[in-house]
Every structure is written in structure tokens, then in C-alpha cells.
């Protein structure tokens, strides 16, 4: 259900962009999804395939999901480390004073529009 909600927002954002730029058909969408965004990409693609059929603008589009790594910053030893492997505790110094630098984003990188 979570993925479906995001698909609806994605479709809305794309529809708005298409309107602003006079695009009638989108053939390709590149979505950048962080490793810890909480989005299950398989699920997401299924939801997208279901939903796109309802839209003239999107029905022939291909969705490409690019997963990017999550990186955490340790404020105690000033180092970065891979979030998924080590979680909240810094593998270098054992500190819990850490925060996510990136990896929870869900960004539309680009779209390919068919021209008239």
C-alpha cells in the first residue's frame, strides 16, 4: 500500500511536469531510490505497471529504478560508513552519535518525452 501511494504521487508530479512542458507522452522514467528509503522496488514496479495503464501520458512508459547506496556519518570519529551493513553504530569507533548522510531519497532523475 505504501508503494502504491508513492506511485500515485510520482504520476501526479509527472502529469504536472508534462502539462508545464507540453509533453503528451512519456516513454521512459528514471527513478533514483536510496537503499534505506523504505521502498521495495519489486513491489513498486508492479504498482507502476498496474497504474500506468490508466494514463494516456504514461501507459507506454518504461520505469527504470536505480538504487543508490546509503551512507552514514559518524560525528565522533568524523568518518563515513555504509548504513545497511552497520546500522546506527559506527564500525570504527563504536559511537552511536551518527546520522544518515544520504540514502532515503526517492527522486525522479529524468524523463524521456516523445515529441510530437
Amino acid at each position, binding site marked *: *500500500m505504501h508503494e502504491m501511494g508513492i506511485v500515485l504521487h510520482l504520476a501526479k*508530479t509527472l502529469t504536472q511536469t508534462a502539462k508545464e512542458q507540453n509533453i503528451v507522452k512519456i516513454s521512459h522514467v528514471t*527513478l533514483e531510490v536510496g537503499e534505506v528509503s*523504505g521502498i521495495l522496488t519489486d513491489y513498486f514496479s508492479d504498482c507502476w505497471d498496474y497504474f500506468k495503464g490508466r494514463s494516456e501520458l504514461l501507459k507506454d512508459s518504461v520505469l527504470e529504478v536505480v538504487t543508490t547506496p546509503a551512507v552514514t556519518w559518524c560525528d565522533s570519529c568524523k568518518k563515513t560508513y555504509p548504513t545497511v551493513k552497520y546500522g546506527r553504530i559506527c564500525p570504527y569507533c563504536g559511537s552511536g552519535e551518527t546520522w544518515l548522510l544520504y540514502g532515503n531519497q*526517492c527522486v525522479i*532523475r*529524468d524523463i524521456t518525452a516523445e515529441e510530437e
Partner: protein
Amino acid sequence: MKVIELNESVTESNDRDAQELSSQLRGRGILLVNLMSSPGSGKTTLLKRIAADFAGSPKMAVLEADIASDVDAVRMEEAGVTSVQAHTDGMCHMDAGMTRRGLEAMDLEGVDIVFLENVGNLICPAEFATGAQKNMMILSVPEGDDKPLKYPLMFSESDALVITKTDALPYFDFDIRTCEERAKKLNPGLRIFPVSAKAGDGMKELEEWLKAAVTEIKREK
């Protein structure tokens, strides 16, 4: 064929809607509080208590959001609070557009504070802006003090954390201090209010905070 680089967040259009709704409400001097929690945390009971304590000043209204049914709205109406039920049609959260439509169906004449009772869920509602100026989350004692570890985003996105059902503390292994430490680690500015809506403990502090937020909105109007 042309490629257009967007580099835009998926929720961008919702974020814009939310900002617009927030400033429109501000212009009318109305505070919108987005109330988030898991099902059964005591949201409706808490709101009924606040309504009774406020006794019309500030005047409050409640926008109930559920996947189906109107049991919560009926309970609020019985308590004498203007209430509208919004259905999310299966969606696990409210977004700005749904919130706007819900508010349009309400009589907001003279209303100072609107509570949006979001869908009971600790994950999705945290990811979608609603237009609320304050995010308030509820965690009830029976749910356990480990929730900040499990659902960090909800805790980082909130302005206030209300720990409800403190009258049940003797029966559960819930340590308020541990919970506070875990939550503050995620969000150092978080205000924490342990309350019992049933017994009334801690309600005054929470209500003062809400009243101050209403006053701030009116001042900025």
C-alpha cells in the same frame, strides 16, 4: 525524443500543495495539527479529553482520516466537537490534497485549531506532508519504549511526542526515560508529554503547548 532532467523528489508536488495549504490556514489564523500514531494508541480518547478541557476556547475541530468507517467521527460528534470523516480509499496516509478536501467539507467558522487524525500507522504518514504546521505523534505505553528504534522517521518528523496511557505504566515494561532518550537522539528539539487522558495526568502541560502554538499562528496571521 528528448530527455528532461528533473532531479525532483517524487513527493515534490505534494510538498508544494502542503506549503500552500499551510500558509492559507495561517492567513485565516487556524492551527492544523497532524496527529500520527499506530491504531489503538488512544488518539480519539486524547482528543475527547482535550475538547473537554478546552471547553470551546480555543475552539477545535477534528478531521478524521480512516481507510473506511466513521466510528471516530461519530465519537467526536458525541463529545460535541465539529468533526468530518475523510476516507483515504485504501491509502495508508493522508496527503495535502486529501487534507484540503476534508477541510473544505468542514465549517471552520471561528475555529482556532484543527486536529487531523491521520491513518493509524507509524510509517507512511511520516513521509507525506499534509499542510499541518505542527506534527504530533502519539505512542501509548502498551506499545513499548523501543518504538523510536523501529520507526525513526516518525520521531524525527514530529514536533511533539505524547506518551499516552501512563496510568498503565505499572503493568508494562515501559521506561519513560529510556523512551525519551531514544527519541531525543533522533530529534533533539522534540517536546515530550507523558499523559493519561483518563486520569488527567500531564494534560495541562500538553494543552499549554497547544494553546501557545495557536497564539503563535494568530500572531503571525
